[in-house]
């Protein structure tokens, strides 16, 4: 929505304070871009799954990828940190520039990519270790030499989990509730100082309260990190994200990008009729 004053007065555009729960200016593309995706095409064997996707991920913002099942959003997010390398038939063309460097470049170490671009998955998957070691293990093998107790506490605080488990650090990570496990996975990702956190439907397996806690956590985390989230839940995308990217299937059943817009705009006045049809739930 855009407000225009045409009264001939000089009042300009006023944004009402307190209009949204967290007032944050919409990302402009003059802002720092952390990830630039250009002409991304992904094949699984001969099947052309994702076609000609281009969009930017702005720094310290939440970018949500939405769209119907099978439209390529998880495929795209998994390209960003080269998780698709683990699928033998997957083949990626195009550019995924992280701070200007193509993550698929010949000289680029995929392990380093995944350190800097962390991932949280749909099903919480803490290590079968203590809560403490879930966080310490990754830091240790990445050569962390500082005070481990302090690091563990900081990560658990940043993941809004410390108060709930500070007396149970030796307990197994698997003994936690689903929502707590997911926050432990976020804390684990934070332990190796990533720059970007990818979240592939992080709340799909969680109850509504855990979901809202993680959404609140995301709003806190963007102060220091950049977040990209895939979600089936449109209301979640509307609540948490600054930019929303809508994917759909074209007539050849390939995943394509339909629209990338500031979230406020996409959910109130989308540019593309396909976006409007999807977000209002009108299919067929």
């Amino acid at each position, binding site marked *: 929505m855009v407000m225009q004053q*045409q*009264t001939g007065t000089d009042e300009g555009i006023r944004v009402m304070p307190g209009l949204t729960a967290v007032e944050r200016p919409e990302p402009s593309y003059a802002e720092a871009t952390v990830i630039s995706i250009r002409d991304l095409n992904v094949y699984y064997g001969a099947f052309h799954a994702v076609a000609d996707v281009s969009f930017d991920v702005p720094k310290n913002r939440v970018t949500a990828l939405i769209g119907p099942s099978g439209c390529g959003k998880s495929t795209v997010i998994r390209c960003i940190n080269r998780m698709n390398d683990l699928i033998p038939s997957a083949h990626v063309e195009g550019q995924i520039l992280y701070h200007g460097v193509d993550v698929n470049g010949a000289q680029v170490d995929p392990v380093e990519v995944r350190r800097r671009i962390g991932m949280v998955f749909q099903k919480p998957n803490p290590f079968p270790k203590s809560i403490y070691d879930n966080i310490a293990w990754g830091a240790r093998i990445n050569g962390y030499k500082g005070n481990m107790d302090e690091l563990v506490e900081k990560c658990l605080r940043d993941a809004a989990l410390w108060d709930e488990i500070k007396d149970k650090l030796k307990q197994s990570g698997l003994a936690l509730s689903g929502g707590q496990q997911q926050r432990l996975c976020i804390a684990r990702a934070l332990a190796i100082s990533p720059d970007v956190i990818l979240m592939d439907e992080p709340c799909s397996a969680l109850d509504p309260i855990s979901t809202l806690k993680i959404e609140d956590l995301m709003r806190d985390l963007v102060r220091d990190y950049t977040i990209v989230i895939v979600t089936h839940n449109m209301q979640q995308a509307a609540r948490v994200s600054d930019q929303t990217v809508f994917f759909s299937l074209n007539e050849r059943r390939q995943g394509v990008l339909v629209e990338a817009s500031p979230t406020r705009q996409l959910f*109130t*006045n989308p540019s593309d009729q396909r976006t409007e049809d999807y977000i*209002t739930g009108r*299919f067929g």
Partner: protein
Amino acid sequence: MTRVAYTHQIQELRDAVVSLASMVDKAIARSVDALKLQDVQLAWDVIRSDAAINRQRWQTEERALLIIATQAPMAGDLRTIAAVIHIVTDLERMADHAAGNARIVVQTAEEPLLKPLVDIPRMSELARAMLADSITAFIQEDADAARAIVERDDEVDELYDQVYRELLTYMMADPSTINRATHLLWAAHNVERIGDRVTNICERVVFAATGTLEEMAVSTY
């Protein structure tokens, strides 16, 4: 097609707006007839019918809030629902102006009309035509039509100016006419405000269609 029930609810909401507009139009027409004819019976009918208009307004607003609470409307649907909430408010206020004119009839029917009413009924015809066209623009989501309607309020305002000047000359020439002239001035003002309310409706139609909130035709009064 998915979300059949939800689509139906939005359609019912639009229908409720059309129905309310029809009730309001009838109230406006009858209130001006009552003024012209000094028909107290008709005036009381208009006053009593205002309660039904108020009820319809609240029910429509409740219906809109229920859709928001239960269906999480987005995009065009959300803008339509937001527009409906404002439009029914403007319609209800228009009906209040009509009821105000009906009360003027009740208060002044003992004395003969100062002169046969010509300009006030003409203002009312223009405002009613604007109302009908604004509701059509709402149904058709036609922003251009809505903007064009706003321009027509100038003619209503000009007629009001004319009525004002004419009534002033009556009052200056003969102070014994002041009571009746003042009541007629209020009646003309009520109709002028009806025209302004239609421009508010047009602003909401433009918003529902385009997502842009445009201030249109600021009233001189």
